[in-house]
């Protein structure tokens, strides 16, 4: 082999080893090293992927992964767990009675209700019924979800320390309340690399809710790569305009003309490379080629009109409309099929400080059938087994009412001590109902799962020991799960 080419090979590998900030993109890396299709796989002898194989020899897989791709459905604002999954029939007897001090135990409150004179209990106004073999209680607003509880793995004992949105969402996404750390998707992009040639590794979709009474801020800091290299940041697909920023050629420039200019560009860059000899020039050429391929593959990906009618039976009619949660869920499936590693969907307006009755029907309708449809669809296509689907918010809500309370309506403040999440597929234990809260859905009485525990479990499903899945920054081996001890919740794993 040409010694210079060999240098380039070593050079690129070295950059990944050092994980320096002037890192070559993974795509270019793969192009330089050759590719073996889907990655990573457990090696024949051990459990580690081959170092010269199709993924960057950065972090190593510690276990055979159960899941290879992730769809994370984040409900922004914090859904009220007791109005959806954490059934508390005892509360009916407590209507408008004060929350006992023995339950609150001096819990710190947001300044939105810390001035309230009373903390009157608001029992859920919704009917619940048991479903499935596991007998999971589900509220009447989620009829589709109720049909698949035996495929789902519920955690009713999630907890966090954050009580306001910014720090709480940041915590949920990055394992730290202070902004600036990489999010889960970025960690997995870093750890697992890409599965495809033409699309980003980590995609973000921000769905528009039907009701928009109390939206919360969602910003790129939630899908940032933090101290990891920038290529691990989420790429936001937009529901209006170009799905990826600047993906479309200018008007009057057909693909053939773009190809012409890229050919000229490439030839000129090659000439310059001969003179200057900067390896980065080759990286750039490759990035332009990848951009050109993305220009073809992204429209194909987002062209949901090619889906058969049956698809809309599954996801609901809303899936025809760009920007809805249903449409996003359908896009997520199409992305998983095409090898996108991590799809993050945000659905807003769960911050029900007031008017639970006026908002919950819309909130639940937005997500109920699409979640069901997504999981049935993944299952039917044989993708659910290796695709981990996660649903949840950044904290729970209080059993006591914020503001006025009546039999028909109430509000709920933020509540960090317990909330419900669910997972499906990707090696999770189907039908599991894990954790319990007290009669007030206020404190956890059994099997608490902290955010760090949850992250540790997710990493485990994807093949990483959270203690050893690290990135050196500021002289420390940084981890998604931070410095506090965290546990993998084995009961959630099949």
């Amino acid at each position, binding site marked *: 082999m040409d010694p210079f080419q060999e240098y380039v090979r070593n050079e690129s590998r070295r950059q990944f*080893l050092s994980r320096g*900030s002037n890192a070559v*993109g993974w795509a270019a890396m793969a192009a330089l090293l050759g590719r073996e299709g889907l990655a990573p796989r457990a090696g024949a002898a051990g459990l580690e992927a081959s170092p010269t194989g199709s993924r960057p020899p950065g972090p190593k897989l510690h276990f055979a992964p159960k899941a290879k791709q992730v769809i994370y459905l984040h409900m922004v604002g914090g859904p009220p767990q007791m109005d959806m999954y954490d059934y508390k029939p005892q509360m009916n007897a407590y209507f408008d009675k004060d929350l006992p001090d023995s339950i609150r135990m001096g819990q710190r409150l947001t300044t939105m209700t810390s001035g309230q004179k009373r903390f009157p209990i608001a029992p859920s106004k919704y009917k619940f019924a048991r479903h499935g073999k596991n007998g999971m209680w589900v509220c009447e607003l989620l009829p589709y979800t109720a049909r698949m509880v035996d495929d789902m793995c519920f955690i009713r004992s999630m907890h966090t320390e954050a009580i306001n949105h*910014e720090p709480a969402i940041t915590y949920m996404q990055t394992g730290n309340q202070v902004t600036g750390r990489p999010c889960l998707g970025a960690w997995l992009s870093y750890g697992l690399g890409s599965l495809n040639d033409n699309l980003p590794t980590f995609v973000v979709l921000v769905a528009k809710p039907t009701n928009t009474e109390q939206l919360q801020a969602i910003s790129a800091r939630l899908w940032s790569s933090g101290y990891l290299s920038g290529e691990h940041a989420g790429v936001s697909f937009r529901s209006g305009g170009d799905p990826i920023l600047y993906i*479309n050629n200018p008007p009057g420039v057909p693909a053939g003309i773009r190809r*012409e200019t890229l050919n000229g560009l490439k030839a000129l860059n090659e000439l310059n490379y001969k003179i200057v000899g900067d390896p980065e020039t080759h990286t*750039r050429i490759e990035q332009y080629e990848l951009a050109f391929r993305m220009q073809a593959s992204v429209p194909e990906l987002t062209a949901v009109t090619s889906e058969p009618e049956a698809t809309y039976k599954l996801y609901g009619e809303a899936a025809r409309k760009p920007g809805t949660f249903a449409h996003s869920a359908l896009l997520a499936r199409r992305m998983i099929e095409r090898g996108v590693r991590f799809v993050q969907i945000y659905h807003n307006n769960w911050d029900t400080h007031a008017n639970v009755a006026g908002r919950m029907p819309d909130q639940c309708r937005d997500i109920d059938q699409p979640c069901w449809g997504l999981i049935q669809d993944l299952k039917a296509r044989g993708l659910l087994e290796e695709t981990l689907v996660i649903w949840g918010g950044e904290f729970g809500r209080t059993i006591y009412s914020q503001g006025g309370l009546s039999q028909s309506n109430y509000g709920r403040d933020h509540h960090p001590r317990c909330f419900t999440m669910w997972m499906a597929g990707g090696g999770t234990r189907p039908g599991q109902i894990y954790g319990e809260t007290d009669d007030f859905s206020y404190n956890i009485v059994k099997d608490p799962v902290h955010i760090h525990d949850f992250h540790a479990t997710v990493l485990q499903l994807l093949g990483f020991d959270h203690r050893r899945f690290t990135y050196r920054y500021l*002289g420390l081996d940084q981890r998604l799960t931070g410095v506090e001890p965290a546990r993998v919740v084995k009961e959630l794993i099949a």
Partner: protein
Amino acid sequence: MQNTQIQSGPILWVVTGLLAIAPAMATARAADAPKLEYNRDIRPILAENCFACHGPDSAARKADLRIDRREDAIDLGAIVPGNPASSELIARISAKEATELMPPPKTGKSLTEAEKQTLRRWIAEGAAYQPHWSLIPPKRPALPAVKDAGWARNPIDRFVLAALEARGLRPAPEADRRTLARRLCLDLTGLPPSPELVEKFVNDPSPRAYEDLVGRLLESPRWGEHRARYWLDAARYADTNGYHFDNYREAWAYRDWVIAAFNRNLPYDRFTVEQLAGDLLPNHTLDQEIASGFNRCNATTNEGGVIPEEYKVLYARDRTETVSTVWMGLTAGCAVCHSHKYDPLSQREFYELSAFFNNTTQPTMDGNVKDTPPTIFVPTPADRPRWEKVSVEARETRARLDARKSAARVEFDRWLASAKPEDLSALAPSAGLRLATDAIGPDARPIAHFESADVGDFEKDHAFSYGAWIKLPGKGITGAVIARMTNAGGYRGWDLWLEGNRLATHILNKWPENAIKVVTRAEVAPGAWTHVLATYDGSGKASGVRLYIDGRPQPTDTHVDALRETIRTNVPFRVGRRENGEGAPGSEVVGVRIYDRALSAAEVAGLSGADRLLALARTPAPSRTPDDLNAAFSWWLDSVDPVGKDLRIRLAAIEVEQSEVRARGTFAHVMHEADSPAMAYLLDRGEYDKRRDSLKPATPAALPPMSPDLPRDRLGLATWLVRPEHPLMARVTVNRFWQEVFGAGLVRTTGDFGITGELPSHPELLDWLAVEFRESGWDVKALFRLMVESSTYRQSAAATPEKIQADPFNRLLSRGPRFRMDAEMIRDATLAVGGLLTGELGGPSVKPYQPVGVWEAVAMPESNTHDYRQDHGDRLYRRSLYTFWKRSAPPASLDILNAPTRETCTVRRERTDTPLQALVTLNDPQFVEAARALAQTVLKTPADVSDARLDAIAVRVLSRPFKPEERSIVRASLARLETHYRDHPDEAKELIAVGESKPDPSIEPRTLAAWTMLANELMNLDEFLNK
């Protein structure tokens, strides 16, 4: 053995990564130099393998042993100086048993044989320790001897060449003049050179041609813009508050201060002191106070429900981390939660440092406003002298008015006794009166219901005035006083409105994109009859609206100024409501008047005064309240009394001037110290509610002591930082400037000079530069001159395969700097080459093209930066440092090219290479438009000389003509593009219509389209995107 590895290149690189250079130097020396040096040879090994458990962090310490301090290590027998065999450290690192071995195998760390040998030798040599290299104050080192002394133009070159020669490398030849002209312009001004500048330089016969060009560029105002751009990353400057709503923050006065500071070459020690403590300097100037805005650039919140103390702690932490990073290269962040594992900055010291920044009068909740206090008003530079004079005049005139007021009461009482009602009503203007209902008086009945389709049907180009007497039940009242307004289609019409007791008016076609909204700063006091009135001059502009309270013109804020279309509506005029209500609850309204012209200020004063006096006159003397009498007196003084009237007119003129100056000016966010002495709590694990000891401000013990005469405030801290014995400040600064020019710092970890940071590639050069910089009087321009005039800088960037192997990242500077430009430089270069860039300096931030939905997708609906309203005209083509920076959605194209979010301090940007970046420079309308503009320029070149147009495009994009091989590729590209657009005229028209500037109609669209795509191709060349 080690040496063989070094020569084999890639293998060693794979093993040791970017730290390779310094250890390589160390081991190279080990062979010939007898004595090992702790910092260079030993500490890296210990820090990597031992300090995590045997270092400064007491919480993580094992076996009570620390080996980062010599006496501790000796006390516990880990080290016996001169006797490796008796040293436990050596025994443990050589242990055979896994349970004995250090570092423990389960940590995944292990020492190489060479490292073990080095430790043995060091102990044998006496185990001398040193403080960490960066904590030893720099001394000016002697210049090293070099073989090729003729190559060195200045001391920088001696250090660089010595290191190259030590590895048997030669510097690259000097780059040609065209390349140098481009490199210099980009480094000193951030913009590519004009073809004329290049030609002039190429043909300049003067032996000082190069130095002259450097001098000219350093004097360009573009210099300050370019340097400021880097600094603003460090200062985390942005145009929004950051968290939650992420509302607009009007803070650009600070940005402009930074630009001006670089342009006037403010010595860096002053630059430091003014930014950290300009507000505390005795007799400080306005500029110095603006400079203190450095510490106001942090992200703030107003999220409902947050606990203020939590955020107060976060703000102080951010300021501490930022100042530590920028001036000391210390990564203080870790010490928030625990004592720093490797660096000698304890948790206690972190909070002592944070106490300096914990004493501000700033409210924790930013109020979602653009001017969270403390702020100061900043007039435009042109207004500054006048502003100071006017302020004095206003003070004096008010004093004289007060004096007249106390003297004239008797005269007023006499006048009132003799006044006749008909004289009084004559004071109210009658011309153009269209509606007048009964005004205030003893028998006034608030209007319960009034509507009329005939009243107030004005068009937007029609002048009119509208007002009433109102009495408000309390504070916080919001709603309509009078209105002719429909709710349909997003509101249309006009109203007089209350917004939290502030008087406001809407004149609109559609809210908010086609509307005017003006709001007073003052509130209407509740419980008393107050006259409110608006005049509108039909100009369609907010500046044509005046609001009056009790006959006095009011200072106002313009919330919206975008009226373009009709305001007429069929909905009738109503009192106390709009079409669907929205009245001001509990408010009483009488004396409604509408005029079909804009009343003058004197007329409005007359109107409100006349109404008041008439009411008073109709009230029997005993029933007249002191409040009513005082109000009437006040009016009499302003409008009837010749002395008072004269003074009032003069004051009004002054106030108008003041408000005009205010409207043109801006304000600066500044720091103000609270009265209480500065302090901070040590917070357990960094949690705001886990307070431990109360701490006074202090500097870390590992650094030179802070003189007892220095005040324990920000000024004292700043003064301490710029003391000559400070080991970090000068080094960190020259290193960051070096990075701007050479792409990487001499210490590559620009923000981390601590133990976990990388070692300098050229330690002596770094020290020499630091001392030189300090002794030059902290002269920034001189430092850059030194760097860019060196032979090191002037080398060609071309790399041979041998050099790539020996010096893959150019850490040894074996060739000239070449790296992808930062986002702003790429956009600015594109605009400049296209001839679109405008040269205006400073001012409010601008909003150039951005795809629809970038803000909207992430912003909260309540945010005033939810909708991106793109600017037009010249504001599309300003330098990128003026682009509006919303922290939660930074400018999209810049963001993709690695611009930081500005949420926290950034001293080293990432430089990735991604397909999304290619899409920006290929497809962003800004880039396409610039390509078309460039095409237009070159198409004006006569085509009579062969390839004249190709030459014209080459010199603009690359600052050089095409080489023959390039020329044939470009010709072929152009031919294919021409063929395509000749056959597709519609596509040609579409393409050249991109952007808001109009395509040159004298150029055939198909030709222009083909050349536009050719320019687009060339403006994506690697060479164009690289410095």
